[in-house]
């Protein structure tokens, strides 16, 4: 589902941030991406989201070579992925409902379908009844779950999470990991960047460890 082959990312100013990265995530597989800060975790995720292109090598997501995808086609690639962020990246001037509905409206769903799916997604993350609230009126854990609902609302085959539990206490973190497990069970491929060691050890999943831009365990 996500396939890296000898991927190199080089910046003019800082040199190689990712060196010769190769790995393969199968459909329905869950993996953790770890490493010290500055090891290249965020860069790797940015490459998958095609926010940047790799300098050399090949990245294939859902059988599409990302380096061959035209700029105008990128939105359609991104719709296959649900992104979850440490800082949630919610629109604070929109209600929870509107935040979660955004990917559906972008994809052109009618309002009945939007209603149905948003409610289903909010139910999934146990936020039913909070549709009309604004993100800032919710706790950190709830905001993160709004972010997750938004990421899964159009049922993407891939979920990418960047430090999803970074701001949460262990109990909430476990709850969120539990959600990820449920998505994995229905065949979603999940890549989670984190340095929360206890979380990784609890779940006993594959670990991709980056050290100075190189993959050491995979």
């Amino acid at each position: 589902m996500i396939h890296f082959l000898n991927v190199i990312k080089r910046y003019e100013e800082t040199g190689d941030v990712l060196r010769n990265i190769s790995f393969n995530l199968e459909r329905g597989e869950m993996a953790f991406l770890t490493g010290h800060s500055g090891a290249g975790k965020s860069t790797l995720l940015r490459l998958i989201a095609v926010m940047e292109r790799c300098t050399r090598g090949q990245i294939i997501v859902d059988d599409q070579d990302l380096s061959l995808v035209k700029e105008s086609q990128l939105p359609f690639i991104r719709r296959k992925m649900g992104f979850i962020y440490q800082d949630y990246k919610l629109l604070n001037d929109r209600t929870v409902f509107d935040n979660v509905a955004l990917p559906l409206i972008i994809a052109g769903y009618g309002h009945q379908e939007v209603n149905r799916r948003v409610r289903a997604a909010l139910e999934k993350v146990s936020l039913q009844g909070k549709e009309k609230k604004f993100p800032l009126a919710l706790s950190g854990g709830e905001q993160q779950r709004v972010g997750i609902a938004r990421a899964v609302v159009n049922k993407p085959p891939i979920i990418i999470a960047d430090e999803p539990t970074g701001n949460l206490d262990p109990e909430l973190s476990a709850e969120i990991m539990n959600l990820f497990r449920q998505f994995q069970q229905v065949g979603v491929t999940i890549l989670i960047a984190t340095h929360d060691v206890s979380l990784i050890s609890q779940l006993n999943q594959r670990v991709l460890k980056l050290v100075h831009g190189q993959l050491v365990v995979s």
Partner: protein
Amino acid sequence: MRRVNKNRIKKDPPIKQVKQEKRQTTLAGGTLQDKLIAYRELHTKVLFSSLGRMIATPFSSIMTVVVLAISISLASGFYVLVVNIHQLTGNLETSNQISLFLRDEVSDAHAKKLSESIHNNPRVQNVKLISKEQALAEFKEYSGFGSAINTLKVNPLPIVLQILPKNTLTDKQGLADLLKSFQQMPEVDIAQLDLQWVERLQAIVEVAKVFAFIMNILLSAAVLFIIGNTVRLEFYSRRAEVAISKLVGATNAFIRRPFLYTGFWIGFFSAVGAWFIVTLIMLILRGSVERLSGLYEGDMHLLFLTIPETLFLISASSILGVVGAWVVLFYELRSTKLQ
């Protein structure tokens, strides 16, 4: 959560996959009809949410709209002015007659004989004699100097022969010859072709028309840039939203849409505002223009912006708004990097 047909097309080679995937995504909402309905819903929603956003920041919206309305009203006001002057000269075009101002010593009887002989000229269609008394009465009535004239002991006005030549507009050379022959008559003090000053006025109107055209172009450019800049500021204030929308798969068209509608609304309201300004000025001017027209014995009525002109004004301004917004967004979206 139930997985939907995402896996179905897995075995195709990558290139073909792109096409299929695109089709699949465009059809995400269901049938084509659902899709169209959803698209229309989206446009309606964005149309009004853009309006709502303008209303939510009334101060800056009103300032922008007022600035634009004044600019547009300058251009369209000048246009209306030209139209009115043009109308005036249009009326005068029919009066291309020759006036002969006779010498003071010419008697009424002599003048009558002269007018009869001129009337027999084959190139003359009609002659009208205005005696000194008639001229004075007319002057009293329209000049507003009635009481002052009453104090005059001698009538200073000459006898006038108003001559309407034949084929005046087609035969300029003949007209000039006719004028020359009149000038050489011993009784004639001044022979004046009224067409001359009509032509001069028309030339001035032509200049004004060109000037109005240039002014319209310049002010259209101003509208374009002002709306573009307003939309750019709006875009910057909503950068976070743009970035998030992009990350969840928004196309540039989707991101552009609300801003294009903002441009549309600004253009629309500015044109409506400009219409009100122009109409208000015309209403203020109407009384005095009609009095002036009365003094000149004219039947001039002030022309307002017609309905087609108003519709043109509003649609041109709205389109300029959309174009201005589009140009700005084209560059902004190209230079926006995702964070």
